[in-house]
C-alpha cells in the first residue's frame, strides 16, 4: 500500500516522523524498480488469498478435495489408453499408468498455474481498480494455491506407487525424488514468468488470452510429458534438449520411477533460464501494472 521508505531528498532524513514512509507517485518508474520488499510486505495478503482460494474451492464443489484425486486419475487413464495402448508410445520400461501419471501430475501444476496467472489483470479488474497492493501478490498466490492441489495429487501418486510395487511391478524410486522441491520451484518459476509475461501483453493484445490455453496444450506435446526424451529421434533430440522444461519432467520421472536421464548441467542451465525469464516477466509486469486499469 505504501512505497519503500526512501531517503528524504530535501532533509536527508527519512520522512518526517519516525516511521513515516515517503511515497512518490510519478509518471516515471524505472524498469528495475520492482519493489520486491513491498511484495514481501504483502505476505499476509498472499496467505489470505491462498486461504480464500482453498476455502471457496472446496465450499463450492460436492466432491471437495477428492476432485483433485479423480482429475489426474482420469487424465492418466485417458493417456494410458490413447498414448500407451493405441499409439504405443514407449515409456522406458516403466508401467505406462505410472509413467503418464507422473507426467500429468507435474504438467497439471504447471499448466493450471500458467493459465490462471495469465488472466490476473482481467479476472481481478474489480479489485485492482479499487485498491493498491503489490500486484504480483495475485499471481504469486495463484502459484502457491495450486501447490495444494499438487500436494494432494502427489500423495495419490505415492499411494499408487506403493500399490504397484507391492504387486511386484518394476518401480524404483531414486534419490532424485529428493530434488522434487527444486523441480517444483522451477515449474512454479516458469509458470509464473510465462503467466505474467502473457498477462502484461494482454493489456495491449486482448486476443492473447484466447491463445494461452491452446499454447499450453501445444507446449505439452513439445515437452517430454507423455513420452520420454529417449523416444525422440536423434535428429530432433536437440529440440527437446533446448526446451528448458525437459530436464524438469525427466527429473520427476527419474525420481519417482527410476527411468530417464537428467543432466545436472542441463538442469542448472534450465534454472538459470527460469531466473532470467522471471526477471523479464517481473519487469514487463511492473511496467504495465501501473496503467493497465486504463485499458481493462
Amino acid at each position, binding site marked *: 500500500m*505504501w512505497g519503500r521508505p526512501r531517503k528524504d531528498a530535501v532533509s536527508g532524513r527519512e520522512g518526517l516522523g519516525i516511521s513515516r*514512509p515517503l511515497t512518490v507517485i510519478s*509518471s516515471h518508474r524505472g524498469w528495475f524498480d520492482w519493489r520486491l520488499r513491498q511484495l514481501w510486505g504483502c505476505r499476509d495478503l498472499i496467505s489470505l488469498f491462498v486461504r480464500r482460494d482453498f476455502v471457496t474451492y472446496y465450499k463450492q464443489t460436492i466432491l471437495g478435495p477428492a476432485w483433485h484425486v479423480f482429475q489426474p486419475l482420469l487424465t492418466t487413464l485417458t493417456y494410458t489408453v490413447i498414448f500407451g495402448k493405441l499409439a504405443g508410445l514407449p515409456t522406458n520400461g516403466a508401467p505406462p499408468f505410472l509413467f503418464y501419471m507422473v507426467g500429468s501430475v507435474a504438467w497439471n501444476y504447471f499448466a493450471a498455474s500458467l493459465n490462471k496467472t495469465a488472466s490476473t489483470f482481467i479476472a481481478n479488474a474489480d*479489485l485492482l481498480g479499487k*485498491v493498491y497492493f503489490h500486484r504480483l501478490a495475485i499471481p504469486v498466490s495463484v502459484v502457491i494455491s495450486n501447490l495444494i492441489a499438487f500436494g494432494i495429487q502427489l500423495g495419490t501418486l505415492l499411494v499408487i506407487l506403493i500399490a504397484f510395487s507391492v504387486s511386484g511391478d518394476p518401480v524404483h524410486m531414486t534419490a532424485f525424488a529428493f530434488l522434487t522441491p527444486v523441480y517444483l520451484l522451477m515449474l512454479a518459476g516458469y509458470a509464473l514468468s510465462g503467466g505474467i509475461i502473457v498477462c502484461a501483453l494482454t493489456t495491449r493484445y486482448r486476443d492473447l488470452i484466447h491463445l494461452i490455453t491452446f499454447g499450453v496444450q501445444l507446449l505439452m506435446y513439445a515437452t517430454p510429458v507423455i513420452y520420454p526424451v529417449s523416444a525422440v529421434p536423434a535428429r530432433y533430440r536437440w529440440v527437446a534438449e533446448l526446451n528448458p522444461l525437459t530436464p524438469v519432467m525427466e527429473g520427476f520421472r527419474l525420481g519417482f520411477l527410476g527411468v530417464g536421464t537428467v543432466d545436472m548441467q542441463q538442469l542448472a542451465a534450465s534454472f538459470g533460464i527460469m531466473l532470467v525469464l522471471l526477471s523479464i516477466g517481473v519487469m514487463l509486469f511492473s511496467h504495465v501494472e*501501473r496503467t493497465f486499469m486504463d485499458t481493462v
Partner: protein
Amino acid sequence: MATIISVEHLSKEYRLGLIGGAMLYEDLSRRWARMRGKPDPLLPVGQEQHARRIGDRFWALDDVSFEVEEGEVLGIIGRNGAGKSTLLKIMSQVTAPTSGQITLRGRVSSLLEVGTGFHPALTGRENVFLNGTILGMTKAEIRRKFDEIVAFSECEEFIDTPVRRYSSGMYVRLAFAVAAHLESEILIVDEVLAVGDAQFQKKCLGKIRELAGGGRTVLFVSHSVSAVVSLCRRAVLLRSGSLVMDGEAKLVTSAYQSDRPDFKLNDEVVANLPRTGTGKALFTSLEVVALDGHGKVLPAPVTGSDLELRTTLECFSDFAGANVAAIFFDASGYRLVDVNTALHGSLLTLTKGRRATATFRLREVLLKPGQYRIALWLGRDGVEEIDYVEYAGRIDIGEDVTRSKHIEHFPGVYQCCFTHELIAEETAPGPVGQRYRDA
C-alpha cells in the same frame, strides 16, 4: 503543521477509442504495411495517417497542484467527470499519472469502495481478515482490532456465517467497519457514504469526523455539499480536470453550487445517455433551475423551493397526441413525482424536422433532502413509447436551513403544484439528431 501531501502539476490523459485493447493482428498488419511503405490498412477510408491519434485524447486532470497539511480534512468537490475519481485513483496508486507527481508522507489507505474483495462464500470473520489485508493491514493488526471491528459493525451474532447470507445492510456495515479501523496517516474517502441506510450513513459520517479529529489527514470526495461543509474546513473545486478553486469549504461549495444554476446537461451528454423508445423524437437537453417563491434563482435546490425543468425535443418522424413527462425517483427507485402535460390536458403534436421545448415549473417541491434521479418520457399513453431517458439527470436537494428546524427525515408521500408550457418550432439538427441519423 507540516505538509503531508503535495500534488505537483498532476495531469492524466486518457485515450478515447483505444479502450479495450488492440488486436495483435491489427498491430502486426499495421507494422507490416508501414514496413512496405503502404498507408495504414486499418484507418477509415479518407482519413489521414495518425489522424485518429489526435482529437481522441482528453485530459481527465490538467495540471493540478495543491498541498495538504497534516491533520487537515480536505473536501474535493466537482461535478461528474470533473476529475475527482481520477485524482483519487492516482493517489491510491491504482493508475499512474501522465505527468506531474504526488508526494505522500505516511501510509495511505483509500476507501474508494467498501467491501473490496469480499467473497460471498467466506464467513464474516474470514472476510474481515481478507478485506483488512487487502486494504493494507497485517494479520496481527486485524487480530488486535477484531473485536472492535465486529462491535462497530453490529454483526457479532453472524460473524461466522457466510456473508452471502447477510442482509445488504449488514454487509455494508461490516465492510465499513473494517475500513474505519485502518491505521494510516492518510485516509482517502470516496462517496462510500452513498451506501447503507440513513442511520448507518450518519454513523459513518460520525466515524469519519472522529478519525479526522484524531489528527488523521483525510481527503473526502463527495457530491454532497452538506457532507463536505460539515466535515471539512477547506475544500478544492475541480472543473473539467482543472483545479479552479481552493479555500474555505463554505466558499468553495457555494462557488460549486452557483457553478451552474443547479445543472444543465448539454446536447453532447444527453446524446450519449441510454434510452429506449421508437425514436420518432428524442430529448436533446435538460436544464434544471431552482427558484425561490418570487422567481429568484437559488444557488441550489432545497426542500420547498420551486424547480424549473426545461427540456428540448427534436422530431424525426411525425407524431400526434404525445405526452411529455418528467419523473423524479428517490435513491431506492421509488417514483415520487410525475409531472406530465397530459395531466393538464395538453398533448404534443410534432412534425419531422421541428423542435419542441417543454418547460415545467414545479412549485414548492417538498422533496426531503437527498439525491433524486430525473427521468424524461415522451410517448402516447398506452400506445407507444417514443423516447425514455431513464437517467436524464440527478438532483441534490438540500435542507432549507433558513426555515427548517426539522432534523429526522422519514420517507413519505411528496406533492407539489406545477405549471407547464409547450412550444414547438423549426430546428436545425443537433448532435442527438446527428447520432440518430448516423445509427
